[in-house]
């Protein structure tokens, strides 16, 4: 089960520190899902690959405090996800695999505005930022349309827009192209590629990792390979072929 983290007093962020995982261990009941992770992620693009059940999604959820490790700690720009979760979530956006689970309002513009409402952004600025982000992702013509009538690709773009409109410093993507066709997967890949923010992308789509600065290969809750994209993807292919 997910653990709800506590909230602490405001702390000061230090973007130069990046994301740090220190002695992270996590399990669900008897099943260990993350086993002794010590990492520092400061690269612009970090990819995470691994077989189903290797701990990738739990790893992604650590990075904005959706999951708090049973032992060890996760620091984002020096902020502990256990004690400064609100600040961490303002700094780290999270895009889920299934956009249908992420879109919570009935119409496109209303959903894009949701995170800003939570941040208490004034209505006029909210409208301006929503209009801008919907325009950028080709959703301006759908602003008042019911979200459930969008195509799969448009829903994923709306999910991304709903995160980007909050202007996070970092974004975590949990298998963002898994439910998409090739055209939409490429479109989302382009969107990720063009983001100015640093991103951690958990994926099964190895093409998505082209040009990434660093790729982690996970297996049974551990990082078994950590290096440039080409090297890690090769190691991942070999790991899968050996099974």
């Amino acid at each position, binding site marked *: 089960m*997910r653990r709800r983290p506590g*909230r602490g007093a405001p702390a000061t962020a230090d973007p130069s520190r990046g994301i740090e995982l220190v002695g992270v261990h996590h399990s669900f009941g008897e099943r260990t899902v993350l086993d002794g992770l010590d990492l520092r992620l400061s690269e612009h693009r970090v990819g995470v690959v691994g077989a189903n059940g290797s701990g990738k999604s739990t790893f992604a*959820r650590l990075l*904005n*405090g*959706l999951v708090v490790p049973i032992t060890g700690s996760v620091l984002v720009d020096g902020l502990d996800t256990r004690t400064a979760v*609100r600040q961490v*979530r*303002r700094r780290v*956006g*999270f895009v*889920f695999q*299934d956009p*249908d*689970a*992420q*879109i*919570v*309002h*009935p*119409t496109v*513009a*209303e*959903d894009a*505005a*949701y*995170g800003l*409402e*939570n*941040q*208490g*952004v*004034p*209505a*006029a600025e*909210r*409208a301006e930022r*929503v*209009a801008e982000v919907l325009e950028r992702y080709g959703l301006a013509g759908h602003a*008042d349309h*019911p*979200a*459930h009538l969008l195509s799969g690709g448009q829903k994923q773009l709306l999910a991304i827009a*709903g*995160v980007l409109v*909050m202007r996070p410093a970092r974004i975590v993507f949990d298998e963002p192209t898994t439910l998409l066709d090739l055209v939409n997967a490429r479109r989302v890949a382009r969107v990720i590629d063009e983001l100015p923010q640093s991103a951690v992308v958990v994926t099964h789509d190895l093409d998505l990792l082209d040009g990434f600065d660093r790729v982690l290969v996970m297996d049974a809750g551990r990082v078994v390979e950590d290096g440039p994209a080409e090297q890690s993807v090769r190691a991942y292919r070999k790991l899968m072929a050996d099974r």
Partner: protein
Amino acid sequence: MTLALYVPRASPVHRAPAGAKLLALTGLGVLVFAVPTLTVAGGALAGVVLVGLLVARLPAGLLARQARAVAVWVVAIIAVHALVTDVLTGLEAALRLLALVLAAAVVTATTRVTAMVAVVERVCAPLRFVGVRPARIGLVLAMALRFIPLVAERADRIREAQAARGGAVRGLRGVTTTVVPLLVQVLQLAHTVSEALDARGADDVPLRRGGPRAA
């Protein structure tokens, strides 16, 4: 279904405050029941249709769909009254029902969900004194409107998957074999949605939210 029916137009009805439209809807409901005559019920229906088509400039098809959705009830009401009282009384009750359903459709089609939610939050504001957060009530309302079509779509997918494998999709067996997998999917969805709400700062909701979205 009057879900997510908003039809964007630049009309006076669209521009009218959501609270005023909901009050007018309530007033119409009181009127047609307080003055139970055929003239009032017929006049109310005619008024609603005229406002919907000419002032709000809504597509006629939208109102027709809403009317079709209650057509069975309209016929049933007239038939029952024809047997129990008289046809005119049945006609009056049917016109009353149609007027209210179409009026609700006009309000829904001309009001953004956020504006409606803001009214609900204002109405619920006194509950703050007993520890209830009105913004949460508004969010629940918006999420209900968002997820009802999604859950219906998932139920359809389950039925299709069962039909593709020769399973029963009709009758009591069809219902029972749909409900269990649907429940499992809805629970999984609820878990992910709760994570998404956390990730999008639901815990940051200020005590008093801003008004309806500008523009």
